[in-house]
C-alpha cells in the first residue's frame, strides 16, 4: 500500500493536471491546424487512410479505464518522447526537401515540437510528484527509421500528426482521471497502485 498523499501534494498534482490539460488542449488545436496545412502543402488526400507505422505510438488503448495512474503517465511520457523524435525528424526532412520555400509550415512544425517537449517535461513533473523515477531516454531515442521514399515520408508525417492529435485527446482524459480528488483520503485514483 503506498503512503497517503499529503494535502499539498494533492493540490500540486491537481494543479499540474489542470495545467497539463490546458497544454494538451492547446497542443491538439495546433496539431489539427498543422495537419490541415500539412495535407495541403504536401498535396495529400485528406481522406487518405494511413496504416499504422513502426515507431508511431498508437493512442488507442484497450481497457483504458483499468489503467493505473502510473501506467497512464508512463505511457503518455513514452509516447510524447517518441513524438518529439518523430517531429524533429519531420522538421529535418522539411528543411532538406524545401529549404526556405515553405518556412510557415516549418515554423508551425517547430512550434508543435516545442509544445510536445514541454508536455513531456510536464509529465516528468507529475511522475516526480509521485516520487516515481523518470524512465531514462533509451540511448538517444528510438533507432532512426529506415530511409523512406519522399511519398512514404509524406504519409508517415500524416500518420504522425493524426496520431499526435489523438494522443492529445487521450492525454486530456488521462489527466482528468489523474486530477480527480482521491476516493480515499490522500490517495489519488490509480496513482497509488502501480504494477
Amino acid at each position, binding site marked *: 500500500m503506498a503512503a497517503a498523499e499529503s494535502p499539498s501534494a494533492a493540490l500540486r498534482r491537481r494543479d499540474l493536471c489542470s495545467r497539463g490539460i490546458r497544454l494538451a488542449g492547446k497542443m491538439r488545436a495546433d496539431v489539427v491546424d498543422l495537419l490541415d496545412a500539412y495535407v495541403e502543402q504536401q498535396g495529400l488526400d485528406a481522406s487518405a487512410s494511413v496504416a499504422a507505422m513502426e515507431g508511431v505510438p498508437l493512442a488507442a488503448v484497450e481497457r483504458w479505464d483499468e489503467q493505473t495512474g502510473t501506467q497512464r503517465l508512463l505511457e503518455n511520457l513514452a509516447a510524447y518522447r517518441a513524438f518529439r523524435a518523430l517531429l524533429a525528424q519531420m522538421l529535418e526532412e522539411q528543411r532538406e526537401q524545401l529549404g526556405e520555400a515553405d518556412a510557415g509550415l516549418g515554423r508551425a512544425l517547430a512550434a508543435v515540437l516545442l509544445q510536445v517537449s514541454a508536455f513531456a517535461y510536464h509529465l516528468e513533473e507529475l511522475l516526480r510528484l509521485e516520487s516515481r523515477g523518470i524512465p531514462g531516454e533509451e540511448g538517444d531515442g528510438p533507432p532512426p527509421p529506415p530511409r523512406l521514399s519522399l*511519398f512514404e515520408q509524406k504519409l508517415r508525417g500524416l500518420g504522425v500528426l493524426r496520431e499526435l492529435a489523438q494522443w492529445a485527446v487521450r492525454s486530456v482524459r488521462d489527466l482528468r482521471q489523474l486530477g480527480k480528488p482521491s476516493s480515499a483520503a490522500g490517495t489519488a485514483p490509480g496513482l497509488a497502485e502501480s504494477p
Partner: protein
Amino acid sequence: PGDPQNLKCVTHNLHKMLCIWDVSSRRRHGQTDFCYTTNDLTPQVCFKTKERRAEIPVPESSITVTIKSSGTAFPTKEFVIHQKDIPFVPVTPHILSLKPDFPTSTLNLKWSDNGSIFPYGLDALWEIQILRKEAMEVVTQVTYYSKLTHEDIILSWNWTSDMPLECTSHYVKIRCYINATQFVGPKDWSDWSPAEMIPGKDTEPGGSGVFPLDPVVAVGSDLTFCCVHEEDQHITNMTYGSKSYTMIQLSRRSHAIRVLNASVSNTSGTNVVCRLENGYEGSVVFVGYAPDTPQNLICETPNFLIIKCTWKPGRPSGLYGERRTRYSLFERTSGKNVSCEVNEVNRDHVCGFPVLPDQKTYDFILGVSNPIGQAQSSLLVDITKRVHPKTPEKLTVTGDNSTSIQLRWFINGSFAETRLLCQIEISSSHSERKLHNVSIPGRKSSTYTAQLNALRPDTKYQLRVRCAAADHFWRWSDWSRGVDQTTSEA
C-alpha cells in the same frame, strides 16, 4: 533413286559457302564423294562426307560440284553454281552486353561487328529491336549504320526509354545487313539475335512501388509512371496530383499512366499515388526549370578584402531544398572556387570571393546548376576599377567656428593603395543643398577628416558624407547618417 538433289548453298562471310543437298532414295546414310572445281582451272578438290552438307569456297563467278554416293553404282550428279545465285546472309550478330542505367532509363547495348571476316570498308546496317511487356510488344526498331574495317569492332548504342526500366521487362534483339557491293549474289538480313532481357521490378518478389521514384524533370516533359504491385493486389487507380489517369496494363503486376506536358510542381512536389486495395504506393515528382543564364553579373569590392558579385538569376527554377539551384564562383587565374549560399526564396543573389594577394584582375565564371540543367556567366574584372566603399560611419563634428566646420568619419576597408573621393552634402534653411568634394589618400580601416569653410555664422547645418574611388570612379557609397551642427556666432 539415290540422286543428290536440291543442292542449296549460302554464304555467311563471302569466303566460304555452306552447301546442303537431299538424297531421293532410302539410302540416306552412306558416304558421299564430294568434289568441286572452280572454272579457273584449279585442280578438282574431293573429299568424302557422311553428311549432306559441305563448306566450300565462294567462287569468283561459278563452281562445279559433283556428288556421288560412294561405293554404289549410282551415277555422279553434277551441279554448276553461279555466284549470282548464292545468297549472302551475314552471321547472326552476337550481343556482348545489355546494361540498364535505371536513373536515366537508358539501355546500353554492345555487340561485335565481326568485321574481321569481311573485306575492309563494307557498309553494315544493324536493325535493333526493343520489345517490352510480357507480350514482348515491339516498342521501337532502329537502324544503326557502321563501316566494317576488317577488324572485330565492339559497337555500342544507347536507347532511352520513355518509361522507367523498372516498370516491366525490356528485351533487345539485333540483326544485320552487309552491303557487299562486289558480291553479285542476292543479299539478305541475318537472323535476329536471341533476345537479351532486362527484367522489370514486376518480375521481382517484393518489387512493388511507383517508378520513377522521386524524379526531378523539366517543365513540359511527357512522363510515364508505373505502379508495380503484387499479382493478387487489385489496383484501384493512379493519380498525378489531384487528377486520375487512364491506366495502361504492362503486365499482371504493372500498370502505367502517361502524363503529358507536365507543369511546374509546388514546393513539396507533385504526388503520384497508386491506390491499391490495402494501401498506397507513391512517388513524388519535382517539375521545374533548368537555370537561366545569370544576367547583369557585377563584381565589386567594398573594402579590398572581399569581392561581392551580384547577378539577376532569371526565371525561378521552382525547385527547392536539396534540389535547389546552386551557384559557385570559379576564378580562372587563381583556380579558386567558392560555392555561394543563395537563398532561393528571398532572391538576393550575392556571392563573396576573397581578394587575393597581389591580384587585381579576376576572371570569374559564375556556374549555376540544378538537377535539370546548368548555365554559366563569365566576367573579367579589375577590382581597382570596381570599388564601392561601405557607408561612411561615425560622422562627427570635431571642431567649428563661425564660418567653418571640421568633420571626421570612418570607413571600414583597406584603401591604402587607393585615393578616395568623398562628397559632403551641406544643407541649411538659408541655402540650397551644396555638395563639397574632397579627395583623400585612402588608408587601412581608418578615419578621414575634412574642413568646410565659408559657412554662415550662427547657422544650423545638416551634413552627411559619401565616398567613392577617386582614380577609377565606379559607384558612390551610400550616404552616411546625417549630423546637425550650428556655427557659432560671429
